[in-house]
């Protein structure tokens, strides 16, 4: 009974939500636009903010501190760090890259950093989404050791959704197991 009821409900609501949009235009008219992160600050029952002072040395920085910054994807592109299969350990071979990124941040106190964690295609999607985050967090930790304030660094995981090489071989996988460094500048005039 319950299942049948749900089915009817589903059919009905999908019809309500979607039918009035017509066949050609699949965009439902009723989808609520999601506000930007800043407008959600202080809204009850909604995520989007966190206390910067939250306990735990590993605490991540507040996303609102990074709002409105301009992303420079090329400045640190030479320092992309690579990982072993199914590992989030920062390899010794990547040490000089960490130092170079740390130098760039230390020479410009207004700059911040976004670390993008990525995975090869071997691994289920949500496992890889967590693995990509662990890679980005490990690089953040390594930069903290190199003297960068971790509150200047935010992380994002793309899991296996953003491979640089979509091929299905070891050479491609090695290129995809990576952490990209994106330099963030305050937008001029702000």
């Amino acid at each position, binding site marked *: 009974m*319950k*299942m*049948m*009821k*749900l*089915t009817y*409900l*589903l059919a009905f*609501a*999908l019809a*309500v*939500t979607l039918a009035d949009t017509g066949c050609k235009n*699949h*965009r*439902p*008219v*009723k*989808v*609520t636009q*999601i506000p*930007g*992160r800043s407008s*959600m600050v202080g809204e*009850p*029952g*909604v*995520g*989007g*903010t*966190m206390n910067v002072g939250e306990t*735990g*040395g*590993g*605490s*991540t*920085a*507040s*996303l609102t501190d990074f709002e409105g910054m301009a992303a420079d994807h090329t400045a640190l592109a030479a320092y992309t760090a690579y990982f072993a299969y199914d590992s989030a350990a920062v390899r010794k071979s990547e040490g000089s890259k960490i130092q170079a990124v740390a130098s760039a941040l230390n020479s410009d106190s207004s700059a911040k950093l976004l670390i993008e964690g990525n995975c090869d295609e*071997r*691994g*289920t*999607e*949500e*496992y890889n*989404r*967590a*693995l990509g*985050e*662990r890679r980005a*967090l490990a690089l953040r930790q390594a930069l903290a050791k190199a003297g960068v304030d971790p509150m200047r660094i*935010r*992380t*994002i*995981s*793309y*899991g296996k959704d*953003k*491979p640089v090489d*979509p091929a*299905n071989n070891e050479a491609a996988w090695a290129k995809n197991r990576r952490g990209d460094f994106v330099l963030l500048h305050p937008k001029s005039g702000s």
Partner: protein
Amino acid sequence: MKNNHLNFLRTGLACLLAAGALNLSRGQDEIQVQKQINVLGQTKPILVSLDGFSGEVADVLKFDLYVQGFSFVVPDAAQYQISGTSAGSVQGRVVDRFAKSTILSRSYTGTSLRRQAHAFADDIVQAITGKKGIAQTKIAFKAQSSTGNGEIYVADFDGYNKQSITHDDTIVAAPAWVPGRLAIYYTSYKRGNPDIFYHNLSTGQRRVVAGYSGLNTSAAVSPDGSKVAMILSKSGSPNVWVCNADGTDLKRLTTSSEDSSPCWSPDGQWICFATKIADRRVLAKVPAGGGAMQRIPTPGAPNPTEPDWSPDGKWIAFTSQTGEFDICVLPANGGTPTVLVAGEDSSWSPNSRTLIFTRRAGGRRVLSVLDVFTKQVKDIAQISGSDSQPAWAR
């Protein structure tokens, strides 16, 4: 010994795990008891014949019945003879050839021949097995283009009548239904970060329930719809957290460093997830209200991820990785998992008999449905792109 086995059969034991332990006499008795013996991956299909239907109705009936453990033979070899017509509307009947009786006879009306055929398929399954069928159920999934961006879709379980419920052209992930409700949680990168959204499909309204710094993903809704388990990295590592349906009362449940993919036990008491203990990837469970983590052994099935607890509480399906991926099913109270087919990221049907999962086909990913007892499997309808992360509405 034989008497013991027959007692098992008479009491209708649904699942007999000792594969091959039965040695039944051949002939009519064997066929008649088949529906009562379900062994993961080893159950023989129920033999039916199908006559009088054409076109879409015949296709729908064949698909719906095949993926629920039926196999098609000529009328003289069938235990159940299914016949009828699809001219104008669907009319059908089912005759039990051995009992020599008609167990179903019905005419269908409704929006389309396709819907009528699904309704008939559900009636066939109910009449023959006594169990509720899956022919009129819905799924949600992620459809991805070559850019990596995608949308969340809702469709009939066979992939037809699919509708995009997001239109953000961004990375999306991990749709999860609210049980018995027209609402879905999913991950979207729309705001430049993987955040968890709640989306009411009746009103189209949606909002962020977890938008913390770092990873917010893998939402799983409790059976009563009141709580959401998820993976957040806001404390410095990906861990299992739980909150109210609206995002309030957030609580961290695990402190291990490599957690992913939570799911709920149907009694709402446990949250099962993938983690790493002593340098090995394992499944574990933690009390939903907080408490000590317990390992769930999966002997013979290494590197388990993406668990999903069956709605009847009996099984945990998961993905094992040995190089390639396999769909495995483990008795929820412990035991040895059965490796069923190649694939990943499975989700249980509401009747706990069928799984929908992702299969890699060349450079694409397609969705496939699997009858866990007969191991009969078929891809659902797909037009282009890659479909993955299916979630069965239940």
